[in-house]
């Protein structure tokens, strides 16, 4: 019956377990799922992140001249599920451990990450493309003799042709 007294005495002896949070920064785990952030160099504009986003927080809208697209993440709709980082083929979108999201109502629509990502021109046909990220290209063409530096600047169809031509050249020079 008097077990609680033992607990109380233990509690007094151990002292408070409270973090001094508002006075000192709080401890945050490294893999804490906070705000998402986009690396615009790696984004290829495939749109899978926007497709899987449960909170409908990611918008990808091409601009009027079709020279690029606007990429917007609104933190106020992001449910921190991490689906976008899981599905992103180039790992352009990642999660930081920044959780300082509280803001006043005036800043409600400023709580977003916005990038304008311009298209490049395909070296072969001039179609608007995004650069194939080099680390991805080295993985895809690991067993192929193509020149990676050239191939990442091509659109998918030109890339197919270029790969086939390169393969053909090799076959001619080395028949067996």
């Amino acid at each position, binding site marked *: 019956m008097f077990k*609680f*007294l033992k*607990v*109380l005495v233990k*509690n*007094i002896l*151990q*002292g*408070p*377990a*409270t973090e001094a949070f508002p006075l000192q920064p709080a401890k945050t785990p490294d893999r804490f799922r906070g705000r998402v952030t986009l690396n615009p160099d790696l984004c290829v504009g495939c749109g899978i992140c926007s497709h899987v986003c449960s909170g409908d927080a990611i918008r990808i809208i091409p601009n009027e001249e079709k020279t690029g697209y606007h990429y917007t993440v609104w933190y106020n709709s992001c449910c921190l599920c991490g689906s976008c980082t899981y599905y992103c083929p180039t790992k352009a979108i990642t999660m930081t451990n920044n959780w300082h999201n509280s803001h006043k109502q005036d800043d409600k629509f400023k709580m977003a990450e916005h990038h304008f990502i311009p298209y490049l021109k395909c070296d072969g046909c001039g179609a608007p493309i995004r650069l194939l990220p080099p680390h991805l290209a080295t993985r895809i063409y690991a067993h192929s003799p193509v020149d990676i530096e050239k191939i990442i600047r091509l659109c998918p169809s030109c890339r197919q042709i270029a790969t086939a031509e390169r393969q053909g050249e090799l076959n001619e020079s080395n028949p067996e």
Partner: protein
Amino acid sequence: MQDTYSYIMLIGAALFNLLIFPGGLFALGLGVLFKGLDRKIEARLQRRVGPPVIQPIIDIIKLSGKEAMIPETAQRPLFQSAPLIGFIGMAVCAALLPIPGVSGGLPYMGDMLVYFYLLQLPAVALMIAGSSSSSPFGTLGFSREMTLMFAYEIPLLMIILAVAMKVGGSNFAEFSLMNIISYQEEHGQFITNWVMIPAFLAYLFFLPGTMGVPPFDIPEAETEIVEGPLLEYSGASLALFQLTSAIKNIVVLGFGVVIFFPMTLGGNIAVNILWFAFKCFVLMLISCTFIKSATGRFRIEQAFGFYLKIPAVLALISLVLVWFNF
């Protein structure tokens, strides 16, 4: 001429008792300080840091500046006067409190029966508040408060009778607090007397009930009936309720100290005031803070059964022992 002079002196003393010491400012200050200490220690017992000790004062300052809302359907005169009834009752109670070795309370009035009646007033005020606020939760709180009051009054009455008969001898009862103090100075403290120890234990159980702290905060259960009678109060009226409960703490703790342990430390007034406050504080620690930080809440019928089974029986043992002159 002599008569007029003594009347003025008497009224002056009464006003001093009512407004400054031991009622009024002294009881208020000590009560609010005890509330803060209580919260702080409770937090420490639960491994938290807890609010600053002056937090109750801050709360009261804030509440007195807030908008006060009165429900349309409330009985306005009753609704607005309920906090005053409790507060005045407790202020008078504090003025009557004799502090051993320092003051005798209001002259000729320090009487346990007066206490017995005045101690009901905060509970009655809560009942009026609950029933006049026209809120279903208030009504529920009203019925719970009444049930609980009946439960803890029974042991209190028996404790008072036991003390009175012990002091007065078996033939007649002595209710004057000053006489109780002087009796104990002669014959030893009641807390060291085995006949009175059951009554003291019963008083320890009576304290949390009357102070409305867990596990007996059934009438103001905020998670069940959203603070019950206090539901509709806001602003200054709510602050008045808080002040009432702060003074009530001092009154019931001081009453316990006076009837069970009025020992003084020499003749120095300041030392005796501190000693009195210390005794009250220890009583609060034992009966409220420790229990409250480790328990949940009783249901009303459990609390009723508890008061009839344990404190009432303990008080009855003391009463019977005193009756047979042990």
